[in-house]
């Protein structure tokens, strides 16, 4: 069971690495989702260790928030793509028109 603690830490840091390292917006959103997964796993682990059941409910709400975040993030990327016709961060440096 203790291996999962290290796994959740690893997932979080990998998501962090991906968010920084990736160039196009969609992969950044992907790696953000990875970080969320890591944190949610930690919640379940602690709920199991301390027997405090509410932690598992928090994971419910984390999932709802991550669903909304992905939905709105992706629609923003789409509208950005329509205007700037690119998704790559280094081409988006000059945001102002």
């Amino acid at each position: 069971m203790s291996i999962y603690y290290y796994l959740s830490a690893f997932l979080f840091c990998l998501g962090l690495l991906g968010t920084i390292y990736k160039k196009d917006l969609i992969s950044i959103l992907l790696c953000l989702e990875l970080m969320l997964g890591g944190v949610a796993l930690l919640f379940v682990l602690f709920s199991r260790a301390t027997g405090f059941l509410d932690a598992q409910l928090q994971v419910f709400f984390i999932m709802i928030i991550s669903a909304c975040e992905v939905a709105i993030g992706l629609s923003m990327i789409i509208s950005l793509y329509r205007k700037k016709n690119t998704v790559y961060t280094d081409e988006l440096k000059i945001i102002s028109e």
Partner: protein
Amino acid sequence: MTISKVLGFKRTLVRKMDIYESGVNPSGSATRQYDVKYYLTAILFLLFDVDLVFLLPWALGYQNAQDQTFMIYGFLFFMAILLVGYIFVINSNSLKWEE
């Protein structure tokens, strides 16, 4: 879960016989861009699916709840908000497929 997965997998490997011969495939291919409607249905599906999935625990929680009328008021509020969102989506007819 893994057991039926392993069994399913084994079965397909046995029957895979590769007689290799390259063939001509029809029209040329390019991943061109597609209509925005597909992504809109997927996003709206995600949001409403999360709504409905929240009802599953409610359906089970109703059985052994003490004050069931309180649960019902919560349920009606939940459905009211869901319906408001749904009506908004329909009236904005962003799901119109004019093909």
